[in-house]
Every structure is written in structure tokens, then in C-alpha cells.
């Protein structure tokens, strides 16, 4: 499903973000990527998302070589994956309903099918009554749930979540985690979650990949953060 082979990434300003990263994630897995600030987590996400191109090596997601995509083909690729950002990235001038339906309009889905699907995902993230609200009228946790609903609306094979709980309190974080687990279980979506929320990783144990200074330093099947805290 996700396959990184000998991936290196050096930014134009000379920063070496990733070194020789090899990684395989299979269909239906739920994987944490952990590591301190500057360890290359964000770069990894940007490579998977198509926002950055690897300096060398190949990034393959759902069989597509992401680094070789042309600029105007990147959005088409992104229809296969859903991305949830720490800062939500909702369209501020669109309502909750419109934000979610936008992701379906772009793939030319029929109107009634869109309405049906948007109601379904809004129900999944427990926001049934917020359809006409604007993002600015919602709390952080609610906005994050809208972002998740939007990311999964077109049934992507992969869901990438970049610190989805970064701005939330522990109770809300737990709520989001439960939601992601539900999506992983019910929709069969492969989930890749970047986080540095130690408690969360220890509570909901999953395969955990630890990054440090651009290297993969650990890949543990049953998770846990403790081993690599220096």
C-alpha cells in the first residue's frame, strides 16, 4: 500500500530531512510515526502527500510513484488518499456541509449521492447537527472531526493524519483516536498517524515507527514510546 525505497530528502536550503528511509505499510494497517520536532515526520507526510519530491529513492502509494507526478496530476493522485492536518485546513468561507461535499464535488459525484455520503460521514464523526455552521463557529475538536470527515468522504484507501490531536486536550484526543480506530475497522482504511502524544501511543497500542534526525530508529509491531526516550 505504502512503499518507501531508499528515500533521501534534502531541502534547497541544505537541510537534510530524511536519510535512506525504507518502509512498507500494508493494507488495513494502523501505524504511528513518532519522533521529536525536526526528526523528519512532516517531511515524510509531505512526500506521501505529493507536496515535496524525494531527492532520491521512490515513494509509492497505492501503486503510484508520487515523486514522479506532474504538478497538475497531483490533485488526481490525492483522491486516493485522505490527509488530516494539525491546523485542520478547512475552507473558512464554506459551511461544514460544503467543506465535506467539496471533496466529493471535485470527483464529479452525483448530487444526491454527495448528500447521502456527506450525511453518512457527518454521522460517523458525530456532527449531524453542524452542517450549516462555518468552521470558525466550531471548537478545535469539532473542526478536526470535520477535517477527518472530509478526508474519508471519498473512501480513500489511505488516511494520513498529521498530529490530529496536536491542538486538543486529552479527553478530545481520546475521542479522535476512537474515531480513527472506528474508521480503520469499519471502512478498512489504512491509517498513518504522525504524533508526539506519548500517552496516546501507550494507551492505544499499534505498530509504531520512530524517527530521529531523519533516520528510522525503531519499528515496533506492538508499539510503545518508552524505549527511545533519551
Amino acid at each position, binding site marked *: 500500500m505504502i512503499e518507501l525505497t531508499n528515500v533521501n530528502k534534502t531541502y534547497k536550503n541544505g537541510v537534510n530531512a530524511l536519510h535512506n528511509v525504507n518502509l512498507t505499510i500494508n493494507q488495513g494497517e494502523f501505524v504511528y510515526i513518532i519522533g521529536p520536532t525536526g526528526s523528519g515526520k512532516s517531511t515524510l507526510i509531505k512526500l506521501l*502527500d*505529493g*507536496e*515535496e*519530491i524525494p531527492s532520491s529513492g521512490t515513494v509509492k502509494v497505492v501503486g503510484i510513484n508520487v515523486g514522479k507526478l506532474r*504538478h*497538475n496530476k*497531483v*490533485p*488526481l493522485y*490525492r*483522491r486516493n488518499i485522505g*490527509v488530516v492536518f494539525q491546523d485542520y*485546513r*478547512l*475552507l*473558512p*468561507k464554506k459551511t461544514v456541509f460544503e467543506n465535506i461535499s*467539496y*471533496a466529493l*464535488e*471535485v*470527483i*464529479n459525484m452525483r*448530487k444526491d449521492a454527495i448528500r447521502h455520503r456527506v450525511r453518512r460521514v457527518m454521522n460517523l464523526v458525530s456532527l449531524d447537527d453542524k452542517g450549516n455552521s462555518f468552521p470558525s463557529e466550531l471548537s478545535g475538536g469539532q473542526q478536526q472531526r470535520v477535517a477527518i470527515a*472530509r478526508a474519508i468522504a*471519498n473512501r480513500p484507501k489511505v488516511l494520513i493524519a498529521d498530529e490530529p490531536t496536536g491542538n486538543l486536550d486529552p479527553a478530545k484526543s481520546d475521542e479522535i483516536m476512537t474515531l480513527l480506530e472506528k474508521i480503520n475497522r469499519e471502512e478498512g482504511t489504512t491509517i498513518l498517524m504522525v504524533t508526539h502524544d506519548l500517552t496516546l501511543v501507550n494507551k492505544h497500542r499499534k505498530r509504531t515507527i520512530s524517527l530521529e534526525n531523519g533516520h528510522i530508529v525503531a519499528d515496533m509491531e506492538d508499539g510503545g514510546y518508552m524505549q527511545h526516550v533519551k
Partner: protein
Amino acid sequence: MLSRIFRPIKEGFFGVGRHAAMSLSSASAVTITLFIIGIFLIFTANVQSFTLNIEQSMEISVLIDYDHEQQEQLDAIGLAIGNIDGVRSVNFSDKDQEFQYYIDSFEDEEEQAIFEPFREDNPMHHAYYVEVYDGDNLETIANQISQIEGVYEVNYGGESSVTLVNVINSVRNGGAILAIALSLLAVFLIQNTIKVTILARADEIAIMRNVGAKNGFIRSPFLVEGIIIGILGAIIPILCMIFGYIYLYDALGGVVISNMFTLIAPHPFVLYLALILIGVGIVVGFIGSWLSVNKYLRWKR
């Protein structure tokens, strides 16, 4: 299928409404420039029509020698003049008419009476009055006519006519160049304004790409928005130009200074003016949006 056409239009209208302040600032940039362009259009169009009037009213008067007054000789001279390139019309006026014109040119009856005795022994020449197509050729044609046998004297107003034509021509050309330069400046100004208003929406465009929207899908509502802004910005200048010009025309009685400078009649001139202004507004809004959106589509991969 139809939604592919109607979606951008609907979204475009929503976009203008939801970004009302920005739309207004872009539209006002359009308004100011269309105002300037409109005034210059009125100015150049009228100078153009003055020039035509003046050029058409310029005549060469050709006096015939006393020894060429036989009818066939006169006909031959008239034919020879008519055959010259650039001559629009040739009118004959015999010496009796010429004498009457001369006497009529005095207002005082006593003065007129002084010349009456000469009516029997008419000192005037037969004459041809020649109109030309292009005032620039006045001098050349006058010279050609003077070469014809039997022509006593040719008069075309000399240097002063030529100078007047030259002055009017340079005013007209200068006006046209200025209008073009202003239009280019307008596109630049409007593109910048729209760029600033879209800058605030660069994030929005990046998010749209994030959720899988193709470039054309993102661009089309912005283009509709640009067109709407262009039309909105054109409303005030169009109304001002239409009513302003009609008022000006009525106030001046249709002429400036003398009958030589006749203003263009408001109908259908103001209609064309309105169409040009709204057309410029639409094109400029469209180009401005296109350039700006493209820049931000490239902002992030």
C-alpha cells in the same frame, strides 16, 4: 453534466458575496480605470469626427484662364481634375455665380452697389471647387491641378490648411496612444488588486488542491468572479458616461466653438461606448483573475 457549467457560475457569485470587501476594492479599481478609458474614448472619437469634418470641408478652388472659357475647354479641365487620384468631387461655378458670391460677401448695401457696374464686364473667372478624400493630400493635388493647361490660379488655403490638418492628426494619434497606454496600466493595476485579494485566498487554493481538486476546477469560479467584478466595476462609469455625454451634448448644442467642431450625436454613440466599457471590464477582470489564480495554483505542489 450541466453542473459543470453552472457550478463555477454559482460558486463565482457566492465568492463575490462572501468576499464582499475584496470584491468591492477590485471593482473600484476597475471603475477608476474605466472612467479614464471612457473619457479618452469620448475625446478621441470626437477628435476623429472633427478631423473628418474638417478634411471633408476643405476645398481647392481652381480659377480658369480667360482664354479657356469655351464649353469644351471647361469640360476638358473638369475631366482632367476629376481624374486625379484622391479627388472626391468637382463642382463647377460659372463667373456670374462667382460675381454674385463676391457681392454677397459684403453686408453693407452701399458697398455692394459700388461693384454693381462691373456686372456687365465681369472680371471674375470661371471656377471649379474640388473636394479631396484626405486632407494630407491637399497640397499635392493642388500642385497637380495647377499643371493643367488653362488653369489660371489654384487656391487651397496654403500652409495654414496643411498645418491645421497636421495638428489635428497629431492630437488624434496622441490621444489614441495615451488611451492604449492607460488601458495597459489599467490591466496592471487591476491584476495587482486582484492578486492582493486572492493572496488572502492562497491557503484556500492550496486546500482545494489538497482535497483533490484539479486546477481547472479551482480556477473556473475565480474567473467567473473576475468577470462579475469587471461588470460590477463597469456599471458606474457606463452610467456616468451615458448621462454625462448626453448632458454635455445638449448643453453645448452639439458643437464646440463653431460648426466646424460638431460633436458625435449621443445615439447610438453612447451605446457603443457602454458596450466597449463593459467589454473592457469583462476582459480585464478575466485576465486579472487568470494571471493571479495561476500564480497561486503554483504556490504549492
